């Protein structure tokens, strides 16, 4: 047992000795690095180190939590936490935490991501690739982010383990003109095969095509979503499978288990696999993470759960525990059988949307929402890109859109950017029928 795990276990045991029923202590040593750039130059590079032990305990179904960052006062912290539990309110829906001893897989974290020797090189490589595609006047900005977290978890109910989680992400947006841009991302858990130029070339390629955009038109269109936009949609549907969101009606999937919610070609999984930026061996209760099929051939199979929500729904945890809210870690929309070219050839008059932001709901329960396409917005006629558009909005319904998916590409990309395409996902090109587009008047 490592020294860090031993100390974590000691915190757990101290809390337990005070009289707590269940205790989970989880220590994170995080090393996060980021280089931000704009106008083709580096604006700032950031390093932040975080040393924290999260403690969650229950006493007579009163659930309290703290974060210990000052390790000189551990005893006071856990005593204070236990006193808080004594005056807190019973949570009759508290169902305990994961129980048992588990054997976890070995972490495949890439420790070189603790401190890249020269992150600027990756940034400049991406910028040059964008300029090569879109021209020397291209203006690019974005971030390069790396993460290395060492996690130590000790639960009074049995789970004890260590995990290391690494990630690297490059996100670049290139402007060929003031209103013509493209966005590309490169995401991975390791440096191996990480190719900043791929993201830069994608951003630059879209920015080149997006030049001289015309104001778009209203109407209903068949739409091809780029994997980056698809990542936003997949994240939207994925988060709505959280049992917590279902319980508070922040989801279109309320009372829909076992029902058809999407077209037959839609299979959505949560897979916190080793390739993913969101890789992890266990959840916040220490339950081993696993692959969960959320939607199988259009049928909603399960919500994602922690132990408490699982008990409410009379099922078992899916290994997606957060303290209060179970959450999907890393989503995958199963590949389809179309090539990107085949998908375009299916569209007589439609749009190719490459990215979006600012997704907001009128009503999560009904699924009515809008989102604003950004970067390349292209009119397709007879399978060919005919015109670059701007200033339109996708205003439709999350559930209806899931049912209107008519094509999924074989090709998929691991995507994530900011809070918009989140959580990380493996997303394909999606062809969707009859989507409503609106514009300002």
């Amino acid at each position: 047992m490592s020294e860090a795990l031993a100390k974590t276990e000691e915190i757990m045991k101290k809390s337990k000795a005070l009289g707590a029923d269940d205790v989970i202590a989880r220590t994170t040593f995080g090393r996060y690095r980021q280089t931000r750039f704009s106008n083709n130059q580096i604006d700032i590079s950031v390093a932040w180190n975080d040393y924290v032990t999260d403690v969650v305990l229950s006493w007579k179904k009163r659930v309290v939590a703290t974060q210990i960052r000052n390790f000189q006062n551990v005893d006071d912290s856990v005593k204070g936490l236990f006193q808080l539990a004594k005056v807190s309110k019973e949570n009759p829906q508290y169902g305990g935490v994961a129980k048992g001893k588990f054997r976890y897989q070995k972490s495949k974290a890439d420790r070189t991501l603790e401190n890249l020797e020269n992150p600027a090189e990756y940034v400049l490589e991406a910028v040059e690739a964008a300029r090569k595609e879109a021209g020397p006047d291209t203006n690019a900005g974005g971030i390069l982010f790396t993460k290395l977290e060492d996690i130590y978890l000790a639960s009074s109910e049995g789970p004890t383990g260590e995990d290391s989680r690494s990630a690297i992400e490059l996100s670049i947006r290139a402007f060929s003109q003031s209103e013509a841009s493209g966005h590309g991302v490169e995401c991975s858990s390791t440096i191996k095969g990480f190719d900043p130029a791929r993201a830069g070339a994608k951003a630059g390629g879209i920015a080149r095509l997006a030049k001289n955009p015309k104001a778009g038109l209203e109407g209903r269109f068949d739409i091809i979503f780029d994997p980056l936009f698809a990542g936003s949609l997949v994240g939207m549907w994925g988060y709505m499978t959280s049992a917590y969101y279902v319980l508070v009606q922040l989801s279109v999937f309320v009372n829909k288990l076992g029902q058809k919610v999407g077209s037959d070609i839609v299979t959505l999984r949560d897979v916190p696999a080793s390739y993913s930026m969101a890789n992890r061996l266990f959840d916040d209760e220490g339950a081993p993470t696993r692959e969960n099929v959320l939607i199988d051939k259009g049928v909603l199979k399960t919500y994602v759960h922690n132990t408490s929500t699982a008990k409410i729904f009379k099922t078992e945890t899916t290994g997606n525990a957060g303290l209060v809210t179970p959450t999907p870690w890393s989503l995958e929309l199963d590949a389809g059988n179309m090539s990107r070219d085949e998908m375009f050839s299916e569209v007589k008059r439609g749009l190719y949307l490459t990215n979006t932001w600012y997704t907001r709901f009128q009503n999560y329960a009904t699924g009515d929402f809008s989102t604003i396409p950004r970067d390349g917005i292209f009119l397709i006629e007879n399978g060919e890109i005919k015109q670059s558009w701007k200033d339109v909005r996708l205003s439709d319904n999350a559930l209806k859109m899931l049912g209107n998916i008519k094509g999924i590409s074989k090709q998929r990309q691991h995507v994530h950017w900011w809070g918009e395409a989140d959580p990380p996902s493996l997303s394909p090109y999606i062809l969707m029928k009859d989507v409503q587009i609106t514009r300002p008047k």
Partner: protein
Amino acid sequence: MDKDIADYTLDYAKGKKVDYAEVRAHTENREELAMKNGVLDAYLSAVDSGFCVRVLVDGGIGFASTNKWTKEEAKAMVDIAYKYAKMAKRKDKIVFAEEKSVKADWKVEEKKRIANVSPETRIQTLMEMDKALTSQGINVPGRMFTFGVNLTEKYFVNTEGSVISSYVPRIGAFMFITVVESGKPEQAYKQFGYAGGWEAIDKWKLNDQMIHEAKVLQRVIKEAKAVKAEKMDLICGPEVTGIATHESCGHPMEADRILGREMSQAGKSFIYKGGPFWLGTRIGSPAVTIVDDPTVKNSFGYYEYDDEGIKAGPRYLYKKGVINEFLHNRETAAKLGVRSNGSSRAINYDREAIVRMANTFVQPGDVNEEEIFEDVKKGVFMKSFTEWNIDDKRFNQRYVGREAYWIENGKLKHPMARPVIETTTQIFWSAVDAVSKNIEYDAGSCGKGDPMQGVPVYTGGPMIRLREVYVK
């Protein structure tokens, strides 16, 4: 908080021959309560304390932060920040606008000290609200309430001699409810925020506000009619005025956005050099003056000095409909040849301070609320909103009414079912012909930065009347 470590960090940075360095330390006492459908899920209580160093070297910026308060860690943080700053190798060097050094110690008073309020009382406040809400005979199957307290102590020092200490207690609440009637759901959320003490709870009247929202949703389901899409007058309540102000005036006036520094995330602005809009360009009617003012007492976005140590004051963004003043930090101010107006904020020690709004609102006008309605022949009163969004140049925006009513010959009629205004910044603000005397604020968490920094702000304002805009 160990101020000696912060001072030591600055001294060590000085030894690296930096052009500029600052150390900012935060200690945050945080509490969060999460309640779902009447059940307290969890009660979090924690202290977060750490510091950051930001250095300017050869025109490049490096930043590092940690929560380990040791000299060894401090040195490591300065070393990596210094290395990162040197790594930038910028062609156009970053410089900071000249500013005087400041020595200050400021705080926000709590009339009712939060620390004296027991956990039981905090829990009871939420429980009572849930009880009040569910005893109205309205079906509210989805209820998510969160309640938070953040007591922030800061210490700022820089190589120019500034030394600033501050203490700001903030208290906030968020409520999301779903009302179902005849199988049809409608939803509402409300956010509350205040800089000060527990007296906020008395001011907010949470129970009354949430009961009002539930009744409104029930009535919308039962009685609301769809709008016939056409041009008409639109009266925006303070909540709608506030969100439009924040999104289509505050954000596009952030100078870092204008200069492209946020281009990959929050985006740029419809205002840019060589473009159709710049300082002095008309963007709205003469009735529209929009202010961002961090010094509104007890506001959620209150501060006296920003996170670069610059004295805060009101900024007149749009003045009588004309683009007047951008929001600046020292970096953007230097680029545009002006002084910082104290708009640099960071959410915690582990985040870079960037250009932010504080409390952004339309300056009140000279019209009574009754007068605003009286000569509207047909139109919509959009009192509050549900869905909203805006493009990343802050021009194409949309607001969907939550509580809204049809107006006919100056009188409020039936509720409207989610009326929509989807228009441009220029059309929206040019259509304003009347602004009411009274102002109301709403709390919000403004998102920007990468990693995301949600900073506390006030939106809000008076009622405003827009003539002949397209509502659908």
